[in-house]
């Protein structure tokens, strides 16, 4: 089984977020980066478990420049057999999906894994786009998957419950909490990662038709105003005039 896992680099969860170029791009100065947790903890580990169960190989794929290599090496340290980096800046979900889909097409990939979303832009778009480009079924927000080597049973988180589906053949899956349990890379894995292949390949052409105009931080949280329980008029007035929710 050939398993392809999409690995994204995201800011560390406590990083202070700021923008530059008139708020049209993310200011990465001084920001520490990590592997997107949904990719690392769930997608990658479930792929490794499948390989351990049925054989085959796990390939980690990333779109970006060489500054992403430490994150890719971590995927190799956790257990991926090899890695591919498409050597170009990841400009949009569509652009990234196109790169991954092209690689999957030409490398006979059985299952493409993504995290359910990245924790920076939270688009949750790439998986669905890859599936469309590959003309394959897509299971988003998967919290459980069994695979007997030919048929997979996938449990998806849906609003208020779960959906269980079955699939024969190739598919794309996005991993939510529960799909697997985090594996911490050990020293042996970290040393072995140095010797595993990290292939850098050129990008394929894709329309870059999305342009981000601006980003905005959420409003700063205000203080708490205590209103006397007997003074409902004041509460209504505040909700109407200040909070503007009534």
């Amino acid at each position, binding site marked *: 089984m050939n398993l392809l896992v999409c690995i994204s680099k995201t800011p560390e969860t406590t990083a202070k977020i700021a923008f530059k170029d008139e708020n049209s791009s993310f200011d990465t100065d001084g920001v520490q980066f990590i592997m997107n947790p949904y990719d690392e903890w769930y997608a990658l580990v479930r792929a490794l478990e499948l390989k351990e169960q049925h054989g085959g190989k796990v390939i980690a794929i990333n779109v970006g420049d060489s500054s992403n290599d430490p994150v890719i*090496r971590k995927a190799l340290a956790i257990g991926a057999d090899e890695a591919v980096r498409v050597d170009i800046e990841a400009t949009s979900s569509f652009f990234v999906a196109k790169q991954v889909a092209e690689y999957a097409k030409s490398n006979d990939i059985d299952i493409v894994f993504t995290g359910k979303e990245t924790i920076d832009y939270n688009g949750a778009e790439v998986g669905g786009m890859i599936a469309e480009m590959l003309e394959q079924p897509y299971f988003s927000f998967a919290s459980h998957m069994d695979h007997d080597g030919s048929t997979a049973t996938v449990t998806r988180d849906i609003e208020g419950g779960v959906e269980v589906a079955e699939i024969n053949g190739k598919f794309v899956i996005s991993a939510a909490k529960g799909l697997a349990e985090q594996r911490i890379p*050990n*020293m042996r894995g*970290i*040393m072995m990662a140095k010797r595993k292949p990290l292939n850098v390949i050129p990008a394929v052409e894709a329309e870059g038709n999305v342009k981000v105009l601006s980003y905005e931080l959420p409003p700063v949280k205000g203080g708490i105003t205590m209103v006397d329980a007997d003074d409902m008029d004041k509460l209504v007035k505040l909700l109407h005039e200040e909070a503007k929710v009534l």
Partner: protein
Amino acid sequence: MEKVIHRSNKSDLFKNHDYFGIDDLLTEEHKMIRDSVRTWVSKEVLPIIESCAEQNECPLHLYKQMGELGALGPSISAEYGGGGMDEITYGIIMQELERGDSGIRSMASVQGSLVMFPISKYGTEKQKSDYLPKLASGEIIGCFGLTEPDHGSNPGEMVTNIKDDGDAYILNGAKMWITNSPIADIAVVWAKDETNRIRGMVIEKGMKGFSAPKIEGKWSLRASITGELVFEDVRVPKENVFPDISGLKGPLSCLSKARYGISWGAIGAAMDCYDAALRYSQERIQFGRPIGQFQLTQKKLAEMITEITKAQLLVWRLGTLANQGKATPAQISMAKRNNVWIALQIAREARQIHGGMGITSEYPMMRHMMNLETVLTYEGTHDVHLLITGHDVTGLNAFS
């Protein structure tokens, strides 16, 4: 009564403290290993450590996890199950373990530096293949017997001895303050032979006449077990003795390795205390503002990060020298002495910043502080290390 270890679900809010960008001096592997050990400590040590310390219970299940992680004997050759890594890696692992607790770091540093290191350096091929892979995986636990009830800073005067008896030696004597001894499967023991030379040997649990009682009543390193080693006519096969090393340089070389690890480890404890104090100073409001805004709090925090930064630079340079085989025992003494001392001071100051809250197990300072009182004394006391520096710079030995 059976002890139940409680698992806390408190989040680990620790942030890395690297004021001088020392990360730029580390390799990608160093940083990845640090992150791995830090994550493991966060997931497996921190949720249980206060409960373990309160109940004086050693979390033995962590041995195999540390083995799996590669934290036991990381610089021992990979041929024998070690990690084959450099000295900076070893130091970083000790730092991260001690960010969790000095007792957990002690479990790993005794196993790696005081048991695996002498076996790998002085042991026979059979001793290496018999013991090292199992020690590296955490399948068996080791301890190290040098200190005696009447000979602490002066191990050369030890009275534990071996007498030749054909195909074996007869071992008699007692060792004291031995980390892990009651739970250890093997002990690396140093004893004098009939010509008064110090020899090293591996003693196995279950040998007739060998016992390892626990030392009770410790207020420090409560998540780690400490005991004695008692030998009454223990028959030690000659194949258990290290063949080619005699004299104090055998045990002292192990201590150098362990002290090196402690000089890194203490920074972990210091950073944990500083981290807690910095956060608390920004959250705790008195007189209408965060206490971090007051000059006396800032003085404490500024001095803490200054000392942590100096300590980090000291061990980075020491690790670089150690990688080149050039770190001297005197340099290691200076680093151990300085870094443990600053960590203890930082634990005390950080406790003060927390006010009354600082004395509870809600925060880590009291536990680190009590642990560091041991770390200040074991592996060469604070004062003895000072006199090693004194001897080194003057050429005059204060001990003779």
